[in-house]
Structure formats: C-alpha cells, structure tokens
C-alpha cells in the first residue's frame, strides 16, 4: 500500500471505530424519539454501561458477560426513566437531566467501591488478561482496498451494530411494527384508537434504547480501551442527541452523521501529528495554529451540518408530550 492509501485506510478505520458507539446509542435514541420520548440522559446510561461492563468483566473474566451486564444495566436505567416520564408524567428533559446526573455520580461511586474492594482483596483493577474484546478480522473481506480494513477489522460489536442498523432500518420503514413506533410519536391518539397501548409501546422503545446505550458504553470500556475512567464518555451521549436531529430522525442520516463526526475527529488528530512530522510545508505551517482549532473541528462540522440539514426537519409531533395528553 502506498502512503496515501495507507492514510485513507487509517482514517476510515478510525472513523468507523469512533462512530460505532455513537451509532449504537443513536439507533436506540432514534427509536425512542420516534415513539415520542426524548431521553437526554443517554450519556449517564452509557456511563453506567461502561462501568457495568468493566466491573462484571473484571470479576467474571468474561467479556460477553460484561456486555450482557451493560445491556441489562442500560435497560434498568430505561425502566427508571420510563417510570418517571411515561407513568409519572414527569417532563422528559428534566427527568433526562436527572438520569444523566445519576449515571455520572453512580458510575463514579461504583468505580471507587470496585477499586477499594479489589485492592483490599489484593487483586488488580485491570481487566483479566484476554477478557476484553480485541478486533476481529474477517478473512478475505478485510483485504478489499480501503473499505476492507475500515469495516472488516473492527470489534465484534461493530459488526452487530451494522446488522442492527439494517434490521432497524427495515423494521422502521417496511414493517407494521415500524409504523406503530412512528405512529406512537406522531399520532398516539390513532394508536390508542387502533388498540395499541401507547405507554407500553413507548416503554418498550425506551427499553430498546437503554439496551443500546448500555452496549455502547460496554464498547468504550471493554472493547475500544479496556479501561474505565469517570466521565469517560466525554459528552458522546449529547453528540448522539444532536446527530439524531442532524439525521432528521432517519437512520441513514444518523449513521452518516456519526461517520462524518468520527472522520473529522480522526482527521484532526492525524493533522495534529502530521503538522510536526510531515515534510510538507503546508502541513508544517499548521504548527502555528492552536491545537484548540483542531479539537473544535468535529463539533463545528456537526453544528454546520445540523444548521444545513435540519432546516425542514419533521421531528415526531408528540415528542416530550405525555400520554394521555389531557387527563380525563
């Protein structure tokens, strides 16, 4: 491979790796929002997924068990949120903020307790050797130029995310279930008249969203880094919220937005390195540019795209409106 091909391959692979947890959490959030519920506490749920996956993998030595624990934890968070918003009629934005705070605080507390407990027992807090996930190379397919290493040298959850996206897109656009989910957010009265239990339907969508966010957290802690740190999601949950809007509540738009964000991020990181190491005079001139400029690029790109793409965004009509709308 020549240098340019190497670079393109590297950037694409990094973009897919960085986009995977955002796509995973985003698919769940999209389904939840389409059903009429916005959960801005997705960041907290992801953090809970991170800590659940890390601690359970650390104790059991099995990454798969850790992943399942993260999914279950995400669902528990979703149950609390659903109880507050759907059954308790709390404002979704306020309850989402509380869920975010809960996730941040609780994950930090569990991490502290876990460290103390492991140290008292004389064990390391690092994951047992081989328990975390490593990238899985798909034979033959990974040899496809450019696309191969980018898509087929990824973590197991990335492949599952691709499958999930296909299934979710098909379900939302071509099945009765998809029609019901969208109707829950656009015309809950019609759903009710057709005999669909609106709150139950929305609760199930939230459960799915929680499972996805939990799994996205597991991706960060036991796949991508084999580490846990307080606040390790670094605002990714909020980026996901923006990207759902950027994608105009459509799955291809969401996936495109996540990949775009991941690509710009890997590009800016590569530029930060290349400006010092490259012989190219243009790149070398960038050494005078403050590093903050590079760091803001993915966010500026996301905001610009949001401004352009979401002008006529038809969001779900009944988002953040409790059901039944008027008490009788």
């Amino acid at each position, binding site marked *: 491979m020549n240098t340019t091909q190497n670079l393109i391959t590297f950037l694409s692979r990094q973009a897919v790796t960085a986009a995977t947890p955002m796509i995973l959490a985003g698919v769940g959030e999209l389904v939840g929002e389409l059903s009429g519920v916005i959960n801005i506490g997705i960041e907290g749920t992801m953090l809970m997924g991170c800590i659940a996956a890390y601690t359970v993998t650390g104790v059991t030595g099995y990454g798969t068990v850790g992943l399942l624990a993260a999914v279950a934890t995400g669902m528990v968070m979703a149950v609390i949120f659903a109880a507050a918003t759907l059954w308790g009629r709390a404002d979704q934005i306020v309850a989402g903020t509380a869920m975010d705070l809960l996730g941040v605080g*609780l994950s930090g507390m569990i991490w502290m307790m876990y460290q103390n407990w492991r140290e008292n027992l004389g064990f390391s807090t690092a994951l047992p050797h081989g328990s975390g996930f490593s990238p899985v190379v798909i034979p033959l397919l990974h040899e496809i130029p450019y696309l191969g290493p980018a898509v087929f040298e990824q973590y197991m959850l990335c492949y599952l995310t691709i499958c999930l996206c296909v299934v979710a897109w098909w379900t939302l656009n071509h099945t009765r279930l998809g029609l019901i989910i969208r109707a829950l957010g656009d015309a809950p009265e019609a759903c009710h008249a057709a005999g669909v239990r609106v709150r139950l339907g929305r609760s199930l969508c939230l459960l799915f969203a929680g499972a996805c966010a939990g799994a996205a957290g597991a991706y960060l802690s036991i796949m991508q880094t084999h580490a846990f*740190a307080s606040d390790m999601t670094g605002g990714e949950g909020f980026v996901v919220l923006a990207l759902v809007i950027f994608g105009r509540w459509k799955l291809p738009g969401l996936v495109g937005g996540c990949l775009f964000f991941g690509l710009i991020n890997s590009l800016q990181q590569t530029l930060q390195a290349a400006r010092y190491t490259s012989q190219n005079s243009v790149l070398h001139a960038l050494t005078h540019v403050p590093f903050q400029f590079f760091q803001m690029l993915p966010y500026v790109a996301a905001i610009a795209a949001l401004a352009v793409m979401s002008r006529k965004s038809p969001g779900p009509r009944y988002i953040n409106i409790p059901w039944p709308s008027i008490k009788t």
Partner: protein
Amino acid sequence: MMKKLLMCRVNPLAVVLVFGLMALSAATGIRAAAVKGQLRIALICSGSVTDGGWNQEGKDAILVVKKKLHAHVSILEHISPVRAVDVMRSYAMRGYNLIIGHGYEFLIPASQVAAMGGKTKFAVSGADTTKPGVLTLNFDLAQPSYQLGILAAMLSKTGKIGFIGGEAIPSVVACYRGFAAGAKSINPKIKVAAAYTSWDQPALSKSQAQAFIQQGIDVIYQNVDAASRGVFEAVAQANKSHNSPVYVFGSNSDQNNNPTCSRYTPASAVIRLDRAFLRVASQVQRGTFKAGVAPENLRNNVCIVVLNPKLMGTVITPAMQKALAKAQRELLSGKVHVKG
C-alpha cells in the same frame, strides 16, 4: 390516615433526583471523624480520585500523611474553582489546620479564603506563582521530562517522537517543553509532535496515540491521567502489528508497571507527592509553615525519572543510563536549565 398515606402519589422524578443527588454526594466525599487536637487536613481535587493519575496520586499521598502523622483527613473530589471558595471556607470554619487545593486552578479560591483571616493554612499544588497567605508547591516536571526526551531520542528509530497532554495548562506544557528540549539535545533534527486530548477519555487519547503511530512516531510521552490507559492500549496494539517497537512513557505516578504494555514502558516522570505533602503537613504541625512558592524538583527528590527495572540492560542500554545520569548532573548543577 394510613390509607391516605398509601394513596399519596410519589413523583418518580423526585425519586430519581433524590437517588441522583445521593449518588453524587456519595461519590464526592471521603471523610472520617476527627479526634480533638489531631492535625486536620482537607484535600480538594478537581477530578476523580480514581483517575489513575494526578488526583489519585493526591489521594494516595494524603493517605500517607494521614498514616505517618496520624492526621484526620478529608478528601473532596469533583470540585470546580467556582465551588472551591465555599468549600474551603467551610473547612476553615470547621477548624481544619491545612487545606490543600490539588491543582493550580485552586490558587485564586485559596487566596480569597486565606485573605479572610483565621488559623487555617492553605497550600496549592501544581502552581508556579503564589498569592498572599498561600503556599504553592511548584512541581517542576520539566526536569524529568528533559531526561525522558533524551531517552526518547535514543530509543527512536524513526526520528519522530510525540507528546500527548490532557490539557494545555502551564504544568503540562512545561512537560512538553522539557521533553522536546531533552530530545533535541541528543538529536537536533528530531521531530517532536504535541497534541492535547482530555484527562478522562481513554478512547480519545487512544485514537490520538494511534494517529501519532500512523505518522511514524515511535516514542510517546503522555500526561493524560485516567486517559493514559487509552495510550497504553494503542501502544500495546501497535506492538502486536509493528516490526519495530513503539514505546510510551508514564507521568505523574510510576506507570512502568501498567498491566497493558509494561514491556514497552521504559520510564515514567514521577511526582512524589507524598514527600511534598508530608513536608507541608509537618511544617503546619510544628508551626513553621510559611506562605510562598516551594520549588519541588529533582533537587529535593520530589520530581524524578523512574526507570523500568525490567527493561534495564535490554531496552534501556548502559549508554542511555549514562546519558540520563549526565543530564541529571547538568540539571542539578544548573548547567542545563529547562523552562518550567
């Protein structure tokens, strides 16, 4: 009455909020009851004491002080500079003898509370200037970073090395400066890249390290606290697929024994916070505490390079050890000066 109570609706949102606040409060405070007449010390951290770096080192150091001086210790984490004034004032009102703001961001809050008077003494770690009534511990990690730069230049096969910091604050930028100066003292043509990511996002620091490695950088010096695990992971992965080795240096604490890639971590620039905190606490106990700037460096054995003993003689050759020893002599004699 009982029926009324049972029928009373509990707002689930309130339950969520209460649990959230309980979790937050539980996560941010470590306290123990004090005995009368005991030295009472408060440590205030801006981040989590489980970050595997700066704040965790602070917690470990203050626990050493607690053990050695039988002091009562209170640790508060996740305190922003805005909240710090109230927190410090509260400790001062409760009669704490020493309040340590762990990070230069606490300098102004500490000086504001110190100006209110009282018997409480204030120290701030990681700042290079001081304010009235405050003792600042000026950790000069630039000196050990200079030594790491020498080691990096001798280890690098590509002539490209890199530095990843959590944030471009003066103490971290000083590490980069020292590192670059040390490397250029061995190889003036060496290329030294720098990038700043985050203190607590291992995924971000990992992808930054991967970008460095992709650009041919084969020695990385990181100062990113909890996010260091991401850099170690990137280096471990690179060494699985690269023909020539990629090395990483630790910082703040001795990270040579990290479980991810200790075979590729030849050295760490270490701040022996316990020594600095113990000295300050002892001064408070003896009544000899004085405000001002306390230089903490190679000379008083607080900021040092710790080499990985497992790599001595293999990765770290005798020539490298000799060069490091020479650099140390020059730094101590003042022949070489690194801007901190």
